[in-house]
Structure formats: C-alpha cells, structure tokens
C-alpha cells in the first residue's frame, strides 16, 4: 500500500492531457480516422474530454454519458444521488467514437458506457482513452491510450473542473485531499 499521497496541479494535469491528445491525433492519422465523435463519462471523464475535444478541434459537440442507469451494482449500492442526464447530441451510427474517462481500474464503468452508447446507435468503432489506468481489471477491457499507469493499491481522484488536480496515494488521504480541493 502506498502511504504517500501526492497531487498533480493544474498545469501538470493539463500537460498530461495535452500529451494524450498529441498521441491521439497521431493515432487517428495513422488509422485514417477523420472527424471522430468524442464522448466523456461523468464526471472526471467529461473534464478530460473537454480539453481533448478543444485540442483536436472536433467539429461535432462533446457528448456526455452518465452511466448510473447501466451500473451492474444497482441492487447493492442503489441509485446514484447525483444522476445527470446523458446527452449525445449527434447520430453516432457508423461513426468513430472516442470514449473518454479519467480513471480505469475494474473496467465496469467502461462496460456500462459501452452498453449505453449502443442504445443510441451502432458506431463503426469505439476507442477508450483515459487519463490514468490502474491495475485490477475485472473485465477484458483495455484503454487504447492512457497518460499514466499506476499500481492497483494507489487511489486516484481527479478533482475539478477548475482547477484540475489529480490526487494519487493512500485512499483515505486522497479522499480527504480531494474533498478539501472540491
């Protein structure tokens, strides 16, 4: 267990997202994907997606997913008290979709997001991009690109949207620090 808690400040987080965006642009070019759609997962994923969306200058507006109604643990933990409506303001049938989240660990959020996306239509492809990937996958889901890779034990929380700060370390300390930042 990592007892040290560290935080990355806004310029560092934005730098990571910028690097992720550059790699994404190169990847899209390499695969001949032009004019993709971007969808962020509430809440941190939307903050990351917002910066990436601007960096890539995408023509379509940013889509937003709240996967609360697609969670596989609803009967155990109940309704998320802060459900916000999903907003997919475009037809994603046959389009290339860039799905963005802040952190991936088990893969269950990404699975729920994929399920929800397909209820809006059938995209040609979906690429998952995350700011941070942690070990501990429970489903066969891997991001295409990530800015950071961390051990399973380290808790990660992105606080935002302004300032954007990334807290990494002991779960309790991270929760406290992120709470204070919010």
């Amino acid at each position, binding site marked *: 267990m990592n007892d040290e808690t560290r935080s990355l400040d806004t310029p560092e987080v934005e730098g990571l997202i910028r690097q992720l965006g550059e790699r994404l642009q190169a990847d899209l070019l390499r695969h001949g994907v032009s004019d993709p759609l971007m969808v962020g997962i509430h809440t941190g994923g939307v903050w990351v997606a917002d910066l990436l969306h601007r960096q890539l200058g995408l023509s379509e507006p940013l889509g937003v997913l709240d996967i609360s109604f697609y969670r596989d643990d609803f009967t155990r933990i109940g309704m998320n008290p802060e459900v916000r409506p999903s907003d997919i303001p475009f037809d994603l049938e046959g389009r290339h979709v860039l799905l963005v989240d802040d952190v991936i660990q088990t893969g269950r959020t990404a699975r729920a997001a994929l399920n929800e996306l397909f209820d*809006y239509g059938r995209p040609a492809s979906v690429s998952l991009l995350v700011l941070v990937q942690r070990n501990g996958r429970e489903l066969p889901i891997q991001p295409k690109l990530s800015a950071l890779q961390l051990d399973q034990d380290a808790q990660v929380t992105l606080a935002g949207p302004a300032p954007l700060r990334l807290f990494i370390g002991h779960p309790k300390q991270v929760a406290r620090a992120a709470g204070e930042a919010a």
Partner: protein
Amino acid sequence: MRPNLQLDEQGRLRHFLSIQGLDRQMLNLILDTAESFAGVSNRTVKKVPLLRGKVIANLFFENSTRTRTTFELAAKRLSADVLNLNISTSATSKGETLLDTLRNLEAMQVDMFVVRHGESGAAHFIAEHCAPHVSVINAGDGWHAHPTQAMLDMFTIRRHKPDFGRLRIAIVGDLRHSRVARSQIVALNTLGAAEVRVIAPRTLMPNDMRSLGVHPFHDLEAGIRDADVVIMLRLQKERMEGAFLPSEQEYYRLFGLTEERLDLLHPEAIVMHPGPINRGVEMDSEVADGPRSVILEQVTYGIAVRMAVMSLCMQQTPGAES
C-alpha cells in the same frame, strides 16, 4: 400509516404510497431522477437496463387504461418484466382473498406491486402485509391519494416554472372526491409553493381545506386571477347524476375554463389537467389544445416520473439481493 412505512432504515424510498411523510429532499430526488429518465424516450433504444430481471405486477382492482399503460411502459423502459392483473375479474372474484393473491404473486418472485384500488388505504394494507423484499407503489386508492400523478404534475410545473416559492397555483374542480388534488396539495406545500388556491362549488369543497394550508374559492374568476398554474380536475359523470351538481351545463357556465377566462391568468400561466378531459365541461377544446396547455406533456412526463419512483423503490431493501 406507520410513519416510516415508505422509507427504509437508511431513509431511502421503499414504498411510494402517499406524498404525506416525504420531505422536500425526497420529492426533489424523485424529480431530479425523473429528469434523467426523461431523455430515454428520445433514444434509438428506449430502455435502460436498471431493473433487468425484476418482475413488476400491476394490480388494478379498478380500471384505468391510461395509468396502467404508463406504469407498464415505465417498467418496460427500465427493462423489468411486467404482469398486468385485472383483479376484479380474476382471483378475488373467485373467492380468493387479497392476501392469498399477494402470497401467490410473491411465490412467483414478483418484486413490486403497483396497486390501483377503489378503497382508500388499500396500497398501505398491501405494503404492510407484503414480503420484505417487495415494494408497493400506490397508483390511486379511493379518495385518498394518487402520488405518482401528483409528482408528474410537479415535474411538469417545475419544467416550466422551476421556482415553486414564487408560484400561485389554482386547483379547480371536484376537490371532495379527488385523490389527485389531495396529493397535489401536499406536494405543493412540501415543495414550498407560494400560494395554493382551491376552487370548487360548495358541494364539491371539503370542509377541511383550510387546514391543508390552501385558500378556498367558490368563484372561479376570483380564484384563478393572476395564477401561474391552473390545474383543472376531471369531473366524474356520476357526480352529475347525484346531488352534487345540477348539470354539466351549469358546471361549465360557472367553473369551465374558457378562452376568455384565460385572460385573467398571469400572461405566462400554464393549464394542466390529469385527463381524460370532459371537453366542454371542465374546459373548452380551444383551451385544452391551446398554447398554454401542457396536458400532453403531463402524459409524457408521467412515464419518466414513474420510472424514477420505481427505480428508487427498488434500491436495496431488507432481504434483497446482496
């Protein structure tokens, strides 16, 4: 009713029987959750998987095609399996008691009962006697309550006029027999509406109205003046045949909402009706179909609100899946 029958030990919704006993925070949670469900109807796939594998039984001891249909659609949009039981023509008429019927349905692994009954308190009775993992939603009981109708009305109002604290709301019609009006009044008071007026002939106005914190009127034009929201209640035909009213024409003349009377309202007022409308009795067709009418929106929002109530009730309860 036991004070906490509707809530579990953590204060979460377990049954939805009445607006009474629920605080503003809970009502807002229902409205906020409904807001999230409102977009589901616009998708290619008009469903979310939240209640997949759950079984919801519509127990309608009293016919109501519209209410039953919206509950059924709400359950299906949550991916639940739905049983529609018209009890008056089946089990109980063969001599099976209500509790026998409940036990049999519970043995079929039903997770939720949506109950419509002509007797006040029927949904409470079922909630008190059902298995711990089963939730009960009141879809209208006697003259007592119709809480999901009241909540869909609150949702419709909030969509047009978000600040309840500034609203003058007039409820017009048969207050004496209206379970919808009772639930609306409690909901409006809980949500902090600035002023609730009730307007009815003396024969259709209960004596205890003032104790509910509302302002009674017997003159429609005085009661709706400057109102932001006017809710017209449905007049049951049998009231015309009893001693309550002289005739439909007389009721319409004194209490019907006409285009001329709309001029008395606030310029941006909305007109509501729980449906189905008696055109030419409660209101003119021109009003029902006019620009101020939000009556069809009420029907649409009814599905989202019922989805919200169902999903909130189906959160973890004692004995549920762990």
